[in-house]
């Protein structure tokens, strides 16, 4: 009797525990399901454009060349989800900025890696009192992206490049002249690099610093691989100068070792276009012999079938 009472007591306790648990959960559910925002709290409405628009960036440089033109080069990128992406197929406008106006020089659509290059003749450009030219690259933006712009100021300058051959010694004489003030003034104490054009990036072959007359003589190595005629393209470069920006001058010289641009027959290799003749012949002989014999056997079987006599015919013998 006592045991029965104890059991009943435990059962009651469990029932109570279950009921209270269910009630507790039931009390919580409305809070979860129907809880409201605090109506008294005011929240600033989020600016959709601010949060959704991508903010691109323009990297803008100029390269002055010795053919009296200037390359205006931009790279359009944006930071998106933590990584930098290149923005292709977008319009970038190039402008020349003077005290009075902004004159559009033209526009270029960025390529698949987000780059745009605009070549402008330097004679047509207007310089300020200090002989400087101001450029601006502008991306106007679109529905997904904000606009972006970047300005660059450079002073007109030119690199002259002259190849000099003394016996077997090959040198390049380079001269850097300032053209900003209208007169050509040599620029001293500037480091210039000499490069040779290769398939992808130029190969640096020498370096020199200009003297008081703005000149430097730089030795270059012999027997550089050239084109089919032995021509190599020598480049003199000034990179990222605070006043002049980037400068470049090129000259083609017949100082290289001729390298034929025609494809020569490659040595025997697994990836050769055709197998050796002996292999073809061996293969054909082997295959023809084997499959030829198969054919003979199949013909024999056809003949066997044709020669089937009547089942009761006296020609039928034992199975062997």
């Amino acid at each position, binding site marked *: 009797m006592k045991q029965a009472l104890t059991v009943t007591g435990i059962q009651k306790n469990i029932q109570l525990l279950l009921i209270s648990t269910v009630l507790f959960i039931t009390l919580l559910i409305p809070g979860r399901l129907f809880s409201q925002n605090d109506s008294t709290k005011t929240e600033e409405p989020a600016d959709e454009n601010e949060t959704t628009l991508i903010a691109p960036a323009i990297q803008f440089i100029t390269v002055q060349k010795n053919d009296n033109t200037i390359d205006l080069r931009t790279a359009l990128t944006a930071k998106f989800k933590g990584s930098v992406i290149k923005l292709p197929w977008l319009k970038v406008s190039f402008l020349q900025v003077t005290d009075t106006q902004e004159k559009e020089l033209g526009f270029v659509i960025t390529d698949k890696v987000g780059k745009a290059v605009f070549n402008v003749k330097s004679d047509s450009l207007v310089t300020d009192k200090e002989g400087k030219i101001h450029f601006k690259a502008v991306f106007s933006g679109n529905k997904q992206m904000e606009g972006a712009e970047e300005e660059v100021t450079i002073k007109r300058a030119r690199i002259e490049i002259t190849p000099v051959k003394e016996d077997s010694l090959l040198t390049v004489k380079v001269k850097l002249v300032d053209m900003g003030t209208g007169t050509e003034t040599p620029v001293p104490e500037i480091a210039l690099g000499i490069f040779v054009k290769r398939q992808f990036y130029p190969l640096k072959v020498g370096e020199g610093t200009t003297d008081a007359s703005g000149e430097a003589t730089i030795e270059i190595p012999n027997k550089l691989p050239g084109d089919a005629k032995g021509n190599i393209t020598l480049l003199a470069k000034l990179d990222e100068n605070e006043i002049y920006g980037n400068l470049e001058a090129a000259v083609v010289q017949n100082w290289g070792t001729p390298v034929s641009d025609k494809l020569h027959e490659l040595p025997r290799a697994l990836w050769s276009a055709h197998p050796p003749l002996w292999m*073809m012949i061996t293969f054909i002989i082997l295959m023809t012999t084997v*499959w030829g014999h198969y054919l003979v056997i199949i013909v*024999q079987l056809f003949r*066997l079938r044709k020669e*089937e006599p009547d089942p009761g015919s006296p020609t*039928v013998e034992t*199975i062997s």
Partner: protein
Amino acid sequence: MQLNKYQQEVFDKQRPVIETFDKKTWGWTIFFLLWILLGGYALYLQIAKGHEVTGMRDNVVWGLYIANFIFFIGISYAGAVISGILHILQVEWRKPIIRIAEMITVISTVIGPVFILLCVGRLDRLHHLFLYPRLQSPITWDVFAIGTYFAGSVIFLYLALIKDFAIYRDAKLNIPKWKQKLYKILAIGYRGTHSQKRHIRISTNLMAIMIIPLAIIVHSVLSWIFGMTLRPGWHSTIFGPYFVLAAIYSGTGVLIMAMWVYRKMYKLESYLTDKHFVYLGYIMMVLGAGYGYFTFSEYLTDWFASEKWNSEVIEKLFNPAKYGWWFLFANVAGILLPIFIVAIPKTRTPNLITLASFFMVLALWVKRYLIIVPTLESPLLPMQDTRIEYVKYSATWVEWALTFAGIATFFLFYTLLSKFVTIIPISEFAGKEKATAPVKEKKIDPS
């Protein structure tokens, strides 16, 4: 068709086998199908998720699948070379075993190349092998060689079956109509005329001569897939004959095992006699000695020369912490055991010869694995910052499931084929009754 008394005796003995598909056979068939089903699921995973479900990676690109491929093509030699040679030499005792051998050939030639397909990552480009074959590639040689060999094996088996199909056709067997019709079609009107016999004799002789060089070429080409590369342990001039010998050897082993199974299962002791086991045991012993010689020669030269990369592979094979125990098993069970079992008169019994064959076949499978994996785990270029699973191969359950599915398919095909044709050829017992009379003796003393 008229049968002589021996033919009738053999036929009556095997008649119930092809007439019925008993519960036992159903049981085995379902068992094999279950394994194949598991393999099917593994294949589905492999196709759906890619080869990442296997243990193969950028470095070790071959594993169980290629070992299975070489193994199955190897055992296909049972029919090709053994029955071919015995036919040319007109060895009379070959007659009861020839069909078992030829069936092994055809079935294993079907299953072997399937493992190549499992190994290939881009099956969608498989037709490129035929559309754009590069004759200078040993892989292309292999495709043509195996294709030609398979066609030859089927023809060889079929030629040996035509006379039997004619017997089944005329025997009024208690079988379904479709089966009767099929026998009639396959018998291609054979009635046993002199001219018809001549056609079959010419064709069989041609095939017997052809199948031997063909089989040798196929396995040589297979070995050249390895031998033509500059990988340590593979670049060997003796790989061609080494592979050929190993193939005939393992084929003999499988033939002995198949004989043992059928002898027990269908009580064919009168036809598959102790003599057959002993004679095949002798062949196995000679081949084992030859295989042992090649193995010794191969590893001795590599070890002696101490070339850096070869030494690395040799070290892996000799090191008990790596592949040492497997290598030891491959050589003890694969070379010494069969030789001793057959050489000692007391152990020269069907059961022990079969047991030796079983271990030898297993050892030769291990040997194929040891040819492939340790070499691929020894890259010529040093690998930096590579995860261990990219350097060390370890087969996954997917590969094992497909391996066992392949073995199950082999057994299933063999079971079904042995329900369609008699294992002991009936027509072979005609004409030379005295010479081919069933051997009744239980045990012979070769001494």
